């Protein structure tokens, strides 16, 4: 308990001073994007705690973005109102999607979410009169406090990362207590959980709806932050990207969402920047290859994700006798 609190406090302090240490506009923008991705990945981790995987998260991310953008731009409502409204609408949509799809066995559920993701993305492109089609939506209203317009990257940084901490704490609380035990029991064995009175389908629905709401929150913030949206950041590729973040971080550990979003985004940026410098005549597909190889290496050496891997590494470093530590550390990693 105290360890977790200390972790949160350390994170908060680090986040508070980070913009002053990393003061280039590029780094702040990168941190903002990491924060948004972290919220989406946290939702996937919540879903992962119940043993489910979604390949349609970019759809909810995009629906949140388009929902809040359209409500605020075309109806003239304040973004402060349209963001929660869009989140609620997406949560409702996720409930309707979940009704038929959550009945499906694991891998069929993944395929169903993949399908939903593709359908939503196609609609974004094709419903030109509503979404502006492939050329997107411009002039999305900025977030404004009374008197102050939140336009600077640094102001957004504090808003986004406050929400990251809030969603992290909520997710951590949901994965502890009675609900958390029920989720982990479902992950362990749905039969066993049901035999003890755990309403398996209800819990699966709850985390599915919450994960969609998390994605929608990140998407709505994205829309008012960048102030221009088009269908491409909400494609299947983005869903894969989010899932990779959650898996790399650790699909059943809330800190994993944060670590995964950070690690994968930085890795992605680093490869894009550095590979052309080292191999000047190499095309973009090689970047993707190197990216893929690094992900495979991470999954080989940290199969439970970076969060768990870091924890066991920490235990080994702090460790008493190496012999007594080696066992549990290996067990944690496996």
């Amino acid at each position, binding site marked *: 308990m105290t360890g977790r609190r200390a972790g949160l406090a350390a994170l908060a302090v680090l986040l508070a001073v980070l913009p002053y240490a990393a003061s280039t506009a590029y780094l702040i923008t990168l941190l903002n994007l990491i924060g948004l991705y972290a919220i989406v990945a946290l939702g996937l981790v919540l879903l992962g705690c119940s043993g489910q995987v979604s390949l349609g998260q970019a759809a909810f991310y995009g629906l949140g973005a388009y929902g809040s953008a359209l409500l605020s731009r075309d109806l003239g409502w304040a973004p402060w109102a349209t963001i929660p409204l869009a989140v609620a609408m997406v949560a409702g949509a996720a409930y309707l999607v979940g009704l038929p799809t959550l009945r499906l066995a694991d891998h069929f559920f993944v395929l169903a979410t993949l399908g939903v993701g593709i359908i939503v993305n196609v609609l974004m492109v094709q419903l030109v009169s509503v979404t502006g089609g492939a050329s997107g939506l411009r002039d999305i209203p900025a977030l404004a406090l009374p008197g102050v317009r939140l336009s600077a990257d640094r102001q957004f940084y504090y808003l986004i990362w406050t929400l990251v901490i809030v969603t992290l704490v909520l997710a951590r609380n949901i994965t502890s207590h009675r609900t958390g035990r029920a989720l982990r029991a479902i992950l362990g064995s749905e039969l066993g959980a049901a035999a*003890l009175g755990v309403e398996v389908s209800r819990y699966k629905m709850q985390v599915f709806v919450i994960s969609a709401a998390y994605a929608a929150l990140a998407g709505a913030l994205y829309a008012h932050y960048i102030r221009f949206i088009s269908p491409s950041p909400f494609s299947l590729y983005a869903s894969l990207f989010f899932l990779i973040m959650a898996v790399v971080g650790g699909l059943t550990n809330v800190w994993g969402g944060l670590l995964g979003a950070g690690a994968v985004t930085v890795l992605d940026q680093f490869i894009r920047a550095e590979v052309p410098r080292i191999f000047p005549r190499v095309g973009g597909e090689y970047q993707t290859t190197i990216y893929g190889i690094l992900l495979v290496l991470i999954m080989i050496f940290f199969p439970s994700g970076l969060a768990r891997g870091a924890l066991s590494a920490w235990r080994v470093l702090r460790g008493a006798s190496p012999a007594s530590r080696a066992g549990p550390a290996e067990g944690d990693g496996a």
Partner: protein
Amino acid sequence: MSGTAEGGAPRRVERPVLEVEGLTRRFGGVLAVDRVTFAVAAGEIVAVVGPNGAGKTTLFNMITGFLAPTAGEVRYRGARITGAAASRIASLGIVRTFQNLVIFGEMTVLENVMVGCHRWTRTGLLAAALALPAAIREDRVAAEAALDALAPVGLRDRAHDPARDLPVGQQRLLELARALAARPAVLLLDEPTAGLTAAETRDLSGTIRRLRTGGMTVVVIEHNMDVVMEAADRVVVLDYGKKIAEGTPQEIQRDARVVAAYLGDEPDDPPTAVPRRQAPAP
């Protein structure tokens, strides 16, 4: 909860807590369970015995909502529960264990048992998400109840170990403790002594008998005849999906059909023993 039962007279004349009537399950051309009818009174310990493949586990699966019956009915305290969801039946008070151990391996021993407390705890999503004082208080209550449930099976000092680290015998005891932590009105045990040592088996026999003192109703699938003789008030014998006999352990021991179906390969009189499986009851 049936607070009426005290230790003592095994058979009592009151409305049965669990009734199974004409329960049938067909798998393709095979009748796994064929029109089985029996009733269990509150506070009674009923053993279900029969050769492998007699339909015992299929019967349990139908009672607990894991398998829809082809025909027939299950009643709990007089109300029809046939076809209800497994979690619903568990929350009504019928809790089971599994023949092929179902342990939440990634959780600790204590957390496993705390999942057992799910039935009678209330913390919902919102209370958990906000870590309301009620959620934290209930966590403490559940942890204490779980530790209390671990004590009688001797696992209290392993409470914080990962459940998958326990040997199979102890995992079976853990499953029992977890089911008990649910405070069921009717407990269904599917081969609870499989994989236990002789000493553990004796202990378990005693534990089952003690459960009745607490007013619990127990239905147990058991192969170990010593346990059946010692713990059960009544025995239901299945063979080829049909109920072929029912009675006290002593009556069952003397029943010729049971001897033929279940104890048929007695080494004492090989010439007269009906070879197992060759003469199914009509």
